[in-house]
Every structure is written in C-alpha cells, then in structure tokens.
C-alpha cells in the first residue's frame, strides 16, 4: 500500500513537473526584452510626480502649508515633471512612441510564440492587426476590429 501511494505521488508530481520541458512551444526568456526600460521608469516617475502634486494641493487645502511653501514646492514638482516630460518627448522624437510599442509587440510575438501548433497556425487572422481570430467572437481580442 505504501509503495503504491509513493509511486502514485512520484508519477503524478514527476509528470506535472517535467511536462513543460516537452511542450511544443519553447518561448524564449529574453531578459533584455523583458527588462524595465528608460521609458518605463520615466512613465512611473511622471505618475509619482503627479501624485505628489495632488498630495501637495490637498495638504495646502487642509491649511497645513503656508502660501510661500506651497508655491515653492509646487514649482519644484512642476520643474521635475517638466524635465521628465521633456525626456519623454526626446524619446518620442527619436522614435515614434506608438511605432516603438508596435514594433516591440511584433518582436515579442515573434520571439515568444515561435512555431506554434498546427491548429493555431491555420486559424483565421484578424485583417486589421494579424492577431489570431477566436472562433465565435465578433471583435478582435487584440485591436477590437469588428469582423
């Protein structure tokens, strides 16, 4: 009985652990592609500065800050925000942001999906963005295009 139970545990857990190794789709773990970019950091920073500004205004309305402090701190945050927005603009000018994102998505799709299973390759595609069309759906799950 003990041997049966132990063998069952090993078989089930072993199969469950090892079966991802033999799946058809490999999918690369491209650290550089997945890593945080300067754009991520700038967008995060922008959000935090806006949050700080909202907070500052709230505390001013609460009567906790003198007019002089409020003016000075608000100017400081706005300068910080301006610097971040300027850098975002530079990135945008160097490479159109939307295009960059589209390109990155395309690269990711190519790298991550690899040669998919047959049934997937044969599936109908969205005429607008090329994503796989899910049968029975009236809109594309990726771009929202009406089929």
């Amino acid at each position: 009985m003990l041997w049966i139970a132990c063998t069952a545990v090993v078989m089930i857990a072993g199969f469950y652990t090892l079966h991802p190794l033999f799946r058809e789709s490999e999918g690369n773990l491209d650290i550089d592609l997945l890593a945080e970019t300067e754009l991520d950091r700038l967008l995060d920073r922008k959000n935090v500065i806006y949050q700080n500004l909202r907070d500052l205004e709230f505390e001013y309305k609460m009567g906790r800050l003198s007019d002089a402090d409020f003016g000075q701190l608000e100017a400081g945050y706005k300068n910080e925000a301006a610097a971040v927005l300027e850098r975002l603009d530079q990135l945008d000018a160097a490479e159109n942001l939307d295009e960059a994102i589209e390109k990155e998505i395309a690269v990711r799709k190519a790298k991550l999906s690899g040669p998919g299973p047959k049934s997937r390759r044969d599936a109908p595609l969205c005429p607008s963005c090329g994503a796989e069309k899910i049968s029975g759906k009236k809109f594309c799950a990726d771009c929202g295009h009406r089929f």
Partner: protein
Amino acid sequence: MANFGNFCLLFALCLSGYALVAALVGASQRRHRIVRSAEHAVYAAAGSITLAFISLLYLLLANDFSTSHVANSSSRDLPFLYKVAAIWGAHDGSMLLWVFFTAVFCAVVIYQNRSRYRDMMPYVIAVLMLDLCFFLALNLFISNPFTQLVQVSSDGTMQAFVPADGRGLNPLLQYWAMVIHPPILYLGFIGFLVPFAFAIAALATKQLGDTWIRTTRRWTLLTWLLLGTGLLLGGKWAYVVLGWGGYWGWDPVENSSLMPWLVSTAFLHSVVVQERRGMLKIWNIVLVILTYLLGIFGTFITRSGVVSSVHAFADSKLGNFFILYMAFVLLGSLWLIVDRRAYLESDRRLDSILSRESAFLFNNLVFVIACFAVFWGTMFPVLSQWIRKTQITVGPPFFNNINIPVGLILLLLTGVGPLFAWRKTSFDSLKKAFFWPALFALVACVALVAGGMRSFYAITCLTLCLFVFSTIVEEFYKGAAIRVRSRGENFFVALKNLTLKNKRRYGGYIVHFAVVLIFVGLSGNAFNRESTQQLTTGQEMKIGDYSLKMAGFRQGQTSNYQFGQVTLDAYKNSQLVQVLRPEQRVFNSGERQTTTTVALYSTPKEDLYVVFAGMSDDGMICQIKAFVNPLVFWIWFGSAVMLLGAVICLWPDKTGGKAAVGSGRSGFVASEPR
C-alpha cells in the same frame, strides 16, 4: 502513515532542489520552458509537503504513538482542538508546520506572478527554494516528526515500540490563543521571505527601480500584520495563562519576534520615501535583508537552545546549521549589494532636515536602534559567556531603560511625521500644522499633573498619545471638510469616502491611532498594584478600590486535568461587580504539571487580575495573588483597531488592484487624495 509522510518530505526536498537548479539554468540559458518546469516543481513540492502535513495530522488524531512526536506531544484524553495544536507542540512538528507554510507561500507567490516579471521570477524561485531546501533538510535529517520509537531489547536488537499513551501536550499550551498564536507568528516570520526573494532577484537582474517594492508591498504589510498579531496573541497568552500579572517579560523568544517586527515597521515607512522621492534604495534593500535574517535568527534562538527561555525548544543540534545558513545569506546579499551599488544610487538628495523624508529617516534610525538594543540584551548572556566565560543575563530593567525612551520618541514621530511636507517645510507651515495638536497636548499634560499624576514616563506617554490622537483627528476632519466643500457630501459620507478612496494613507492613520491606544495601555504599567494574601472561606482582602471576599472552594476534574477552584466575590465601593473563579490545574498526562488559570474582571479603566497561587496542606487556606492593572484593556482594543487599519490598507482598489502593482506601461494607480 509515518513512512509515507517521511517519503513525501524527502520527495519534496528533491523537487525543491530541482526547482532551484532549473530556475537558475532556465534564467542563464533564457529557456522559458525550463523555468516553467521549475514553477511546476514548486507546486508539486507544496503538494508533497501538504501530504506530509496531513500524514502527521492523521497520526495525531488516530492516537498513533509509534512516532516520537505524537508520543511526546499528544495523549488519548487530549481534546480534539489541542490534538491539532499538538502538531506544533514539539520541535519537529513545529518545523513541519514551518515548512508547510513556506511551501504554500512559495506556491502562492509564484502563481500570483506566473505571467509577470518573467525576468525576475527565476531568481525569485531560486531564493524561495533555497530557503525551503534548508528547512526541509533540517526537518528531514535533524528534526524529523516521523521518527519512529524503538526500544533496545536484552539481546541488543532494536524493535519498534508503541507506548500505550502519549505524554500529552504541554499544559501551558492548552489555551485558545496558543492554538492560533504559533501559526500566525510563523506566517509572520515566513512571509518576509517573499520581499527578500524579490529584493535579491531585483539585485540579480539589476532591476532596482520600484517594481520589486510595489510587487511586495502588500506581502510585506500582510506579513507585518501577521507578525504583530502573533506578538499580541503571545502577550495575551502570557497575561492570561502564566499568571505573573504581565504580558511582556523581555524573554529571548519574545524578543526574537519583536526584532523583525521593528525592522519591518521601519521598512514599511522607508519604502514610501523610495516610491515618492526615489531615495533610500540601498537602505530599503538592507532593511529587507535584515528583516529576513532576523526572522531566521528568531528561529535560531527558539530552536538552537543558545539562550534559555520558557518558550524555547532547546535543540542544540540545529544551531550550527542556522549559523552557516545565516552567514551564507548575509555574505551573499552583501556581495550582491556591493556589486550592484551603481544601480542603487538615489535619484535625488535630501532637500531639508525639516521634511517628511527626513522624519521617515529618523523614524527608521530609531526603529533600528530599538532593534539593536533588543538584540544586544538578548544576546548578552551568550556574548558574556564567550568573552568572560560567565553568563550574565540582563533583565527587564535593561530593556525598559532603553526601550521606553525609544518608544516615546517613536510615538512622537508618529504624530510629527505626517505634519511635515515632502521635500521641505518652513517654520511658518510647521506653526500652522502644530498649533492645535501641541496646544491640546499641553493642556492635557497640565491637566494630568494637576490631577495628581507624578510618573514622568506615564505623563509623557499620555501627553504624546493625546498629541498624536489630535493630529490624526485633525487629519480626518480637515480631509473630510475638503470633500464636504468641494463635493457637497454629508460629513460622515465624506469621512467614509475619504478613507475608502485613499486606503493606504488613511488606513495608515488608523494603524497610528491603534499605536496610540496600545501606548495608552502600556502607560498603565506605571500604576500597577499587587497584593498577596492567605484567605479562608468568608475572609476578604483589599486591593485598590476592590475587596475580594472568598465565598468557597471546590475541586473537580475533566477528561485531562484535575482542578481546584476558588470562588471570590469582587466588590468595588461595596457593590458586587463580578464573581471570580481562579483555578489551579494538575494535568493527568506527562509529569503532572500544575498550571494556573487567571480570573479577570476587565474594564477600560483597569483589570482586576486574580491568581489562585496555592493552598495549605490541610486544604483550608488558599493563597490569593491579586493585581490591579490599569488600562490593559486598551492594548487588546488597540490590537483590534490595528487589524482594522491594516485590513483597510490591504484592501484592493476596485479599479487598480492589479495595475497598482504593475510596472511602467501597465500604469500606476494613484492612491492619494481624490
């Protein structure tokens, strides 16, 4: 069943070892399916450990005394609830509970982040599995709950031995708070593994922005809450079961739980500075590593027998393994920090000493000093033994002399910190922010002195409590008033919306309010009174405003203990307020240990705490020990408020629960005033 449990532990060790190696290989070769296999191995290891845990539970419930753990910590007459609690009633079983919780945490973390942070997750898995492998190996090879009892027969051969009954659970552990206290405390200790794993993964992948902090924020808060709840439940247990009239004795094991809690509280504050101002990046990493190491150190203290304590398991075989593991973690982490120091530079410098970030920094330093003082006092006996070959123990006066002033400074900072603005605050703004709270506190201080209070610490503590309380009330009032003005809401609706729409900020203030309540309770210590008298039926004793009249004595027994119970009528100003029945219990199993059960009459003003301390040989005279402990009620009430505040902080936003922890382009949902 014992063999099956043993096998499951061994198999889980193989799986977690595989997960560790596979995660690192997958990351270095950038092969996603190897990492996916490592993830599956973690789930499988968690399943295998769960089977081992169920096996031990089955052995306990089935009264199978063939294993040393069941024979030493359970007995046939033990009630069902305590049979379950017997899992952690002895060293080896408690280690299995630890391993079980670790495995479940690992599985949950990996499942939660299965589609996120794919660059970091292999390293997170590796760190989690390193920890799990270490504890699993100890559980299997050093402290195994499935070890079977054997007896050596006259011809020298060993045979399996099954005693007719077990030795029973330690009577001190047979109390409701003790059933939930160790599991909650363990969850608190183990949970810090998650932020630690993410911090190490962030160092390894050089992703040292705010992602790892945002990802682990809720985990850290939840773990902090669990550890704090565990500490308070331990205090409640000590108060009600040990019968010495107090709830905190600066015992090494109590201290070992307090230390990670202090450092994690510092971390919870300092992460805000990193999020808001991009500062203290190295400091935050150091705090997370320190918190994790202190959790392991606490386990080392409890399980190694290096210091003596009423709570310790005292198994000296484990000590060296813990020291090696802690040294490995410490050196590895330090090497990573030094190697990645270029990525840990702050985005900006401190603008002014009079700023919120400066208050947070000061608060952090005070927390760390408090932690170091507790560490020093706890380890002093060991250090003195090493250096002077004489063990010198430092008692509660040492801890109180340092930690009471430190605690008061922290209480002051609880009120002062939120009054500062980020970046810098002028004296004009400070005057506006401080005027009413400071005036209120000053008036209260004068009133306390005029009312006859003379204890310096008690006056300072209560004054500061009132100061902090007024800052919190002002915060809620002014915040709600803005909503009333700008949105036309009813004041109470505005108050509710203010809290629910800014959960992190206002939940934090509720936790601060709970801290105030707990400090009010602690300040009552200065006025404790104690009296011991011998009474016979009809006699009475006086303590404070109370008189206790002995109405009778009876003996009886339950399934697992015999008891003697004194009935005392408690009068206050000649009015009967409560009938108290303190007990002494002698447990049937094991060494027939005697315990006391305290009788309490608790009001917000004070606790009347009565212990049946013993009786004369002829059974006619009972020794009664009575205490009047002012304001203790507020400690337990404050604990409940703290739970409420932390739950509010943890409650996910309807729209942004997931986005708030995402990185960069996934957006960042503001949690500030709306």
